[in-house]
């Protein structure tokens, strides 16, 4: 009987034996590290790097062996040297392309994010506006870019609009999906405590939508760059404010093929860098709780 008298405090004092006890607390697992990175991270870095080096070596070898002229296909070494030599003009153009991409992405985040919140709050808004978002998305940007460039006087602004059109849809559709996929029981729980629409949005729907939004953001980052480059190809404008696409066109006209490749390399590198940065942001935001960013031990 003493047993049962003591029990009311059992929840606090006695060992629960279900993982709540001191002994069952998680112990930090120390992994072997090499220059601060884990073995797995090194594999991730070294494996693609090795492939890259092999392919580049083969490329250089074939170009030299077959004596292919550099105005047809320059070797990687020549491209690299051109990149260094023309860095002055190319880096200026890179900066402009990156600016357009960045601003378009920012606009896509703001407009896409706000629209998705509006659409999920009002069925009517979604019903009446969503089809137009789809129309914008499915119409090839090369087809509308000339119109936009004619309508908007400022070239930079017209490029920005084109890049934004391409970039905003994945953010919009993903965030809508995320906002609507909050756990049904949690929605009930909020209802039970009389939560306002606003509270449900802030405390439940937006956090639940975050992984979806970030997935959309990673796609949109690449698309914004593509949009910026494509629009500039269409605009074909020269002058001081010219991005990488114009450098590619220009080099093509002048048959400076190594320079064309150098600009192309910079576009690709920018795309990879944008993807990596956005992946890092996504990882940092989700690592504590989301499945996609968790390191599983089983």
């Amino acid at each position, binding site marked *: 009987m003493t*047993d*049962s*008298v003591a*029990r*009311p*405090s*059992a*929840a*606090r004092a006695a060992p*629960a*034996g*279900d*993982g*709540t006890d*001191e002994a069952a*607390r*998680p112990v930090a697992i120390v992994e072997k590290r090499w220059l601060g990175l884990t073995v797995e991270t090194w594999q991730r870095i070294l494996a693609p790097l090795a492939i890259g080096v092999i392919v580049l070596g083969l490329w250089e070898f074939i170009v030299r062996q077959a004596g292919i002229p550099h105005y047809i296909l320059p070797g990687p070494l020549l491209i690299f040297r051109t990149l260094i030599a023309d860095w002055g003009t190319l880096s200026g153009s890179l900066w402009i392309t990156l600016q357009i991409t960045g601003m378009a992405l920012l606009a896509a985040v703001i407009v896409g994010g706000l629209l998705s919140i509006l659409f999920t709050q009002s069925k009517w808004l979604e019903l009446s506006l969503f089809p137009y978002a789809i129309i914008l998305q499915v119409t090839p940007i090369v087809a509308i870019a000339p119109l936009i460039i004619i309508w908007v006087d400022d070239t930079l602004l017209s490029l920005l609009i084109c890049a934004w059109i391409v970039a905003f849809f994945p953010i919009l559709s993903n965030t809508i999906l995320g906002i609507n996929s909050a*756990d049904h*029981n*949690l929605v*009930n*729980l*909020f*209802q*039970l*405590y*009389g*939560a306002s629409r606003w*509270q449900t949005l802030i*405390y*439940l729907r937006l*956090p*639940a939508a*975050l992984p979806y939004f970030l997935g959309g953001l990673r796609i949109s980052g690449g698309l914004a760059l593509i949009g910026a480059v494509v629009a500039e190809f269409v605009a074909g404008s020269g002058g001081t404010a010219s991005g990488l696409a114009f450098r590619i066109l220009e080099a093509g006209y002048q048959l400076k093929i190594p320079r064309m490749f150098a600009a192309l390399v910079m576009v690709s590198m920018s795309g990879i860098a944008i993807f990596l940065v956005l992946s890092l942001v996504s990882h940092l935001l989700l690592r*504590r*709780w*989301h499945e996609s960013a*968790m390191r599983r031990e089983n």
Partner: protein
Amino acid sequence: MTARVSLTTPDAVAQDMAGRPVVVLRGVGKRYSNGTLAVAGVDLDIRGGEFASLLGPSGCGKSTVLRMIAGLGEPSAGQIDWPGATHDGRGQPVRDVGFVFQEPTLMPWATALQNVMLPLRLQKVPSRAAADRAAAALQSVGLEAFLDAYPRELSGGMKMRVSIARALVTEPRILLLDEPFAALDEITRHRLNDDLLALWARAGFTVLFVTHSVFESVYLSQRIVVMAARPGRIVADVAIAAPFPRDAGFRTSVEYADACKVVSARLAAAIVA
């Protein structure tokens, strides 16, 4: 360490309400929009301070009844009254319930403490006070060392404890639980049964516990309401007289075995009917 008064001693209001009905269902029915008649003609009085279970086969409408009591879905027939409840600005009775779902239903992006703070934050309790009360609630379920753990870092049983702490943090008059331990292993389930009884004995709230386990309902309850399906209705109301506190010894007692036999018979009759 100052524990919350009302989690350790019977609440004055609850004491006052003891034995008197706190929720009264009269002729309650529910037809879902797809035409399913989930429950029909349910008359049920839940008395203040009691531990009652709703027992029945799968699909007999236990969740439907519980959710209607919680205010998640209106009855399509009959009414639910709240004798002795205060009323809000629009003249609606304040339900004052805590709800525990079958799944822990925690926000994965929030720590245990933040999850338990949620009901208080929704009621605009200042965050400092909310954090203190949430910490006390987590302590009462034995999780004081896991305030900053995320749900993914907790075992199934621990997540369920967080869920119970969240339901209790507002100090509700009635705790509604919908098969809360069905997904847990037996050892953890027994442990949580005991802890739930201990909390109930200390705080004096009213419990309505949904389960499909005869053994669980007999171990926990003062009263078992047996339901049958198609349409969901109440077919028996069995009192379990065994005194509290109950412990592992009760599980092996003749009294327990007899009660299980009686309730099983009622349940079997309900399934055949």
